[in-house]
C-alpha cells in the first residue's frame, strides 16, 4: 500500500519556467494527477482561490508577489478559501535568519534548493504524517513553530542522540540540509 497522491491537488508557484516544469514532472512521477501551475504570487493566489488545492509549493523570490507575501496572503486574507493549507517554500537561502522569516510568514515547510527527489518527498511526507497545529495570536496566524512533542519520558536526557527541548522548539530548522563543506 502506498500513498494515493492522485487524490490530492497541488498548486506550484514558480517564476522560472524550466523549474516549474521540473517540479511538475517530479509530482507526476510521485502520482499526483492534478497539478496547478502559476508563475508568480499574484497569479498563484488567484488560482489558489479558484482551485482550492490541498498543498501549495511556492518559490520565495518572484515578482510582483513573492512566495513570502503569498504565504501571508493565504494565511490572512479574508478571501483565502483555506487559511490552513500546508505551504512548502522553496529557496536557495538556508541561513537561520531566512528560515525564521519564512516561518513567521506562516510557511509550513522549507525546501532548500537545489534539492533532490527524496527531499521533496520528505516535505510532502512531513505535512501528511506530522501536520502542524496552528496558532492564532495577536500579530500571527500560522503553523505552530514547534512540532508535537512525542509523549513519554519527561526525565533528564543523557544520550547524545536525545533531542533537547530547545532543539524541539526550533524544529522548523530541521528542514534545513546539514551544512557540508563544498
Amino acid at each position, binding site marked *: 500500500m502506498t500513498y494515493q497522491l492522485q*487524490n*490530492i491537488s497541488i498548486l506550484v508557484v514558480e517564476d522560472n519556467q524550466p523549474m516549474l516544469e521540473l517540479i511538475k514532472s517530479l509530482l507526476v512521477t*510521485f502520482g499526483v494527477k492534478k497539478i496547478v501551475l502559476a508563475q508568480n504570487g499574484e497569479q498563484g493566489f488567484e488560482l489558489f482561490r479558484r482551485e482550492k488545492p*490541498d498543498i501549495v509549493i511556492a518559490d520565495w523570490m518572484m515578482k510582483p508577489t513573492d512566495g513570502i507575501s503569498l504565504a501571508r496572503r493565504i494565511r490572512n486574507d479574508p478571501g483565502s478559501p483555506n487559511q490552513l493549507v500546508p505551504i512548502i517554500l522553496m529557496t*536557495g537561502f538556508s541561513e537561520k535568519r531566512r528560515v525564521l522569516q519564512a516561518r513567521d510568514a506562516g510557511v509550513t515547510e522549507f525546501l532548500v534548493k537545489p534539492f533532490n527527489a527524496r527531499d521533496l518527498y520528505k516535505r510532502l511526507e512531513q505535512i501528511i504524517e506530522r*501536520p502542524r497545529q496552528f496558532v492564532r495570536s495577536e500579530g500571527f496566524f500560522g503553523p505552530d513553530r514547534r512540532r508535537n512533542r512525542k509523549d513519554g519520558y519527561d526525565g533528564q536526557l543523557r544520550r547524545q542522540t536525545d533531542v533537547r527541548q530547545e532543539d524541539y522548539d526550533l524544529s522548523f530548522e530541521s528542514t534545513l540540509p546539514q551544512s557540508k563543506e563544498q
Partner: protein
Amino acid sequence: MDPHYNQKPRRRAEFIMPPNTLKAKVGSGGLSDDILRKAQTLLENNTADFQPLAEMYLASLMEGIELAKSGGEEQDDEYVISTMMYPAMQLKANGGMFQYPLISAIADKLIHFLEVINEPDIEAVEIVLAFHTTTRAVVMGRIKGDGGTHGKELLYALNQACSRYFEKSK
C-alpha cells in the same frame, strides 16, 4: 500553580488542530523506493538548458557589480550588496537542479562572502567579478557535475581569494 502566574491574560493564543484531510485522502504507506528512484532519475536526466537562465542571472550579477563600481558616497551599501546577492542566490538554487552542482557550490561561496563583507569596496567587487568570471566559464564550458579536480581547484582558489580579502582588511 496558575498558568498565568495569577495575572489576568491580556491576550490569548488560540491553538487549532486542523483535521488531517490530506492523510484521509492519500492513505498510508509513503512512496516506494522505486518511485523515488524514477523521480531522481528524471531529475538527473532532465534536458532543460540551464545556459539561458544562467546567462540571465550572470547579467543581473554584472549589473550589481557595475552598480558597486560606480558607487558614490551616498550609495546604500546594503542595497548594492543585495543586487549581487539575489542573482548569486538564484545561481546557487538553480545550478544544482539542472546538473550544474559546481555552479551551486561556487554561488554558495559567493553568498557566504557577500553575507559578511562590511561594504562593497573595490577589492570586494574584484572578488565578486572573479566569481562571475569563473561561473561564466563553467556555464560556457558546459562543465556539468562537480567539475572533478578542476572544480575543486576553482573552489579552492575562490576561497583563498576571499580569505586574503579578510586578511588584508584586518
